[in-house]
């Protein structure tokens, strides 16, 4: 019984995160300027990270934690690089 409740709760949480991802994609397509799109991508990878951690909880596998860590690292690097590009027109000077 508790297992079913937990499964439903995790499913609802994943559905909410999926909806959040859809909203981020909408902002990514719609965003009037480049900085809005970069914010949308930032929010997108963060919500993807959260849903990956939820998949890890659901399957009981520790592997997904490392995937989430890699996503966090790559997301920070890419957001910083794009912000630098927007500021200076070049990433590495």
């Amino acid at each position, binding site marked *: 019984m*508790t*297992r*079913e*409740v*937990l*499964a*439903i*709760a*995790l*499913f*609802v*949480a*994943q559905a*909410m*995160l999926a*909806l*959040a*991802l859809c*909203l*981020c994609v*909408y*902002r990514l397509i719609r965003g009037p*300027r*480049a*900085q*809005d799109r*970069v*914010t*949308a991508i*930032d*929010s997108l990878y*963060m*919500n993807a*990270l*959260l849903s990956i*951690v*939820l998949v*890890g*909880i*659901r*399957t*009981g596998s*520790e592997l997904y*934690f490392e995937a*989430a*860590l890699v996503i*966090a*690292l790559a997301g*920070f690097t890419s*957001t*910083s690089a*794009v*912000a*630098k590009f*927007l*500021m200076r027109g070049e990433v590495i000077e």
Partner: protein
Amino acid sequence: MNLAPDLPPIAALAVAVLALTGAAVALTGAIGLLRFKTFYDRVHPPTLSTSLGLFCIVLASIVTFSVLGTRLAIHELLLFFFVTMTLPVSMMLLARAALFRDRVEAFDKELAAEVRAAAQQEAADLAAAQAEAAALAAVDERPGHDEDAAYGRD
């Protein structure tokens, strides 16, 4: 959908509540990102999902893996600390880039307005000079018009 870890009831309840809270907070952040009007408003809501949302879901993960494998699994906190350290840096860089771009754009607009005003002034001056020249020429070419007479000379 039937996939869930086999946890004792209290732990399962805690995980369910934490996961739902985290996901709801993340969804709130995404709605804020969608609905706010300017970029400087829109920078703020995604930080909901990276602070409270991430914290709740990481806590749910800690509870799950601590109960599943009999020892305390706190390496998930690494994720929370890493994101908490790096996100302000990237957001600050992004906001500064946006500020710089807005300033450059405003300056360009001002400059373009000044150039346009100067060009219009010049065009008006030119048109006035041309009209004056045309009027003088018309006076000169009138039949029987003696230019010297106009100055009182014979």
